[in-house]
């Protein structure tokens, strides 16, 4: 090769690299530029596959227009060359360009058979590299044997640097673009709002969730002050001061913590949000990402839970007060009377035996009354029949004592967990009370059926209907009690009148 074509070759390669947008095109066009400039027949580029850095596979091939290169190309694409093997392998290993005068006479050329059939003789190979090291090797073949051309090889070595840098730059760009695309896709798909802002609080990006939650179009939001957009007026100054303080001192106040504050939609509706602000570590001026989650639902659920707990505690206190009052007005009075009767009997013992008998009779009656009151009270607190016999005897007793006609149509025989039995009992007790007191019922049916891991209790009356689960503290107390064991309460007016109260609760043995 004469000296005059080498600079032209270099120029041509440089131009074709500049015109290539992606790394694969860069390699292909570099091969084409070299091959056509030098007038050789076939070229190929080799790189290590990702999983096997010490081997080479053929990633790109070129053939001169008039050459049918497919057999050689197939042979090249079909092999994996370990370092040191073949022309590419030895250049990969040594890191230095190499020249083979005649591949058909070379002892280390696995593709010799294909070379023979295609009439290929001379070959050279050079590494292409970047700042990170050798990326791969490029080889060329021609149709007659040639002696080593040192100038050519030197030129190729230089080109190897250019090609390597160009390929790597384009690969880095591609990786960056796909990373950016992936990040954008994450932000687009995120359920939480993500607002990116700069150090002055100005919005740089506003993801689709933020658009939906706050009601601003991203196009309008970008460029505006984040505080003006999504923070209620009375909190804006605090937000701005926090940001300014951070920039001044590096002391984060709101940073990296989940804070519950108030957000505001475009219509001015305020709602509770959970906010986390993180700093984005990237070169350039500091930017922040605000992650915002609408926690209205969570707050409402917390409030309902708090209210339900308060109701349950209040109900327990009220029940205790009722017990105290029942004891005071009932059994305690009887015992006081009993004490006085016995004292008077004692005082009459010497004087008047007849009066003694009278007082003792009165005392026996008073004692019976006291015992009966205590028994009623205990049944109201927790019936012995339930603890000792389970739901069957306890529900039967409720049904028998009901002042309107009531029947127990189904009840499990086996014992159930204490909390389930107590809840089922009080559901039936309350339902029977309501049927008599409010619904004007003539008859009531009670069923308790266990299926799988759940107990379903139904009380059906033929009365007025129209009751609702949240009206009246009795039913709401039942609903709270059921909620506490993960159960549900449903009160419906049946077609044709009457009320059906249905409670369901989990019931594992």
């Amino acid at each position, binding site marked *: 090769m004469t000296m005059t074509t080498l600079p032209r070759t270099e120029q041509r390669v440089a131009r074709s690299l500049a015109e290539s947008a992606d790394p694969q095109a860069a390699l292909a066009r570099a091969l084409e530029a070299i091959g056509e400039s030098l007038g050789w027949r076939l070229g190929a580029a080799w790189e290590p596959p990702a999983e096997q850095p010490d081997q080479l596979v053929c990633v790109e091939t070129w053939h001169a227009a008039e050459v049918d290169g497919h057999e050689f190309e197939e042979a090249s694409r079909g092999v994996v060359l370990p370092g040191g093997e073949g022309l590419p392998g030895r250049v990969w290993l040594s890191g230095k360009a190499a020249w083979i005068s005649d591949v058909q006479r070379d002892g280390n050329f696995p593709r010799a058979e294909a070379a023979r059939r295609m009439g290929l003789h001379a070959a050279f190979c050079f590494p292409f590299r970047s700042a990170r090291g050798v990326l791969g090797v490029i080889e060329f073949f021609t149709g007659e044997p040639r002696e080593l051309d040192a100038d050519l090889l030197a030129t190729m070595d230089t080109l190897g640097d250019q090609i390597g840098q160009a390929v790597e730059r384009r690969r880095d760009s591609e990786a960056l673009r796909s990373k950016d695309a992936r990040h954008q896709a994450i932000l687009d798909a995120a359920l939480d709002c993500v607002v990116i802002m700069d150090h002055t609080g100005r919005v740089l990006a506003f993801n689709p969730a933020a658009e939906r939650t706050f009601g601003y179009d991203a196009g309008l939001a970008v460029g505006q002050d984040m505080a003006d957009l999504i923070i209620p007026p009375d909190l804006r100054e605090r937000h701005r001061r926090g940001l300014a303080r951070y920039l001044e001192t590096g002391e984060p106040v709101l940073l990296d913590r989940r804070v519950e504050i108030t957000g505001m939609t475009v219509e001015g509706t305020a709602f509770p949000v959970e906010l986390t602000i993180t700093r984005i570590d990237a070169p350039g001026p500091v930017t922040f990402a605000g992650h915002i989650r609408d926690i209205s639902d969570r707050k409402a659920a917390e409030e309902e839970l708090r209210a339900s707990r308060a109701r349950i505690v209040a109900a327990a206190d009220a029940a205790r007060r009722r017990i105290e009052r029942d004891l005071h007005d009932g059994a*305690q*009075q009887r015992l006081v009377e009993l004490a*006085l009767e016995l*004292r*008077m009997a004692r*005082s009459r013992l010497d004087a008047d035996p007849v009066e003694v008998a009278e007082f003792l009779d009165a005392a026996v009656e008073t004692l019976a009354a006291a015992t009966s009151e205590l028994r009623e009270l205990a049944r109201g607190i927790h019936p012995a029949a339930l603890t000792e016999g389970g739901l069957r005897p306890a529900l039967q007793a409720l049904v028998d004592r009901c002042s309107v006609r009531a029947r127990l149509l189904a009840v499990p025989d086996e014992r159930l967990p204490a909390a389930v039995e107590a809840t089922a009992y009080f559901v039936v007790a309350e339902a029977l009370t309501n049927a008599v007191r409010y619904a004007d019922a003539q008859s009531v049916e009670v069923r308790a059926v266990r299926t799988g891991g759940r107990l379903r209790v139904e009380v059906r009356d033929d009365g007025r209907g129209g009751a609702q689960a949240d009206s009246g503290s009795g039913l709401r107390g039942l609903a709270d009690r059921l909620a506490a064991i993960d159960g549900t309460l449903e009160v419906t007016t049946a077609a044709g009148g009457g009320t059906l109260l249905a409670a369901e609760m989990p019931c594992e043995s």
Partner: protein
Amino acid sequence: MVNDQRVPVALLIVDDNPRFRLMAARVLADAGFAVVAEAGDGASALEAASVHRPAVALVDLNLPDQSGLDVAERLALGPEPLAVVLTPTHDAADFGDRIQRCGARGFIPKAELSGARLMELLAG
């Protein structure tokens, strides 16, 4: 106060339980106390006191319309003071110095009511 057994001591019983009023009257009759009036709540107690002018009043702590301590105070420290003894259902020790401050002579738990006990309290 020393009780001259020949002259019964005029007694007002204030309690919302009629059976207790009856029993207390019988128990105390032997010790020389005569019930001149009964009342089931604070309002009628004050009225009965001004009409019948008893010397001693037994007052329940648990009245339906007002606190027994308030009634006791009005009877003991009012314009026509009388000796007031509180009759709690149980122990009134929890009430501490409220008993003294309302002007009552002391208290006797209902179940322990007797003529001797009442006389002892009024004397001391």
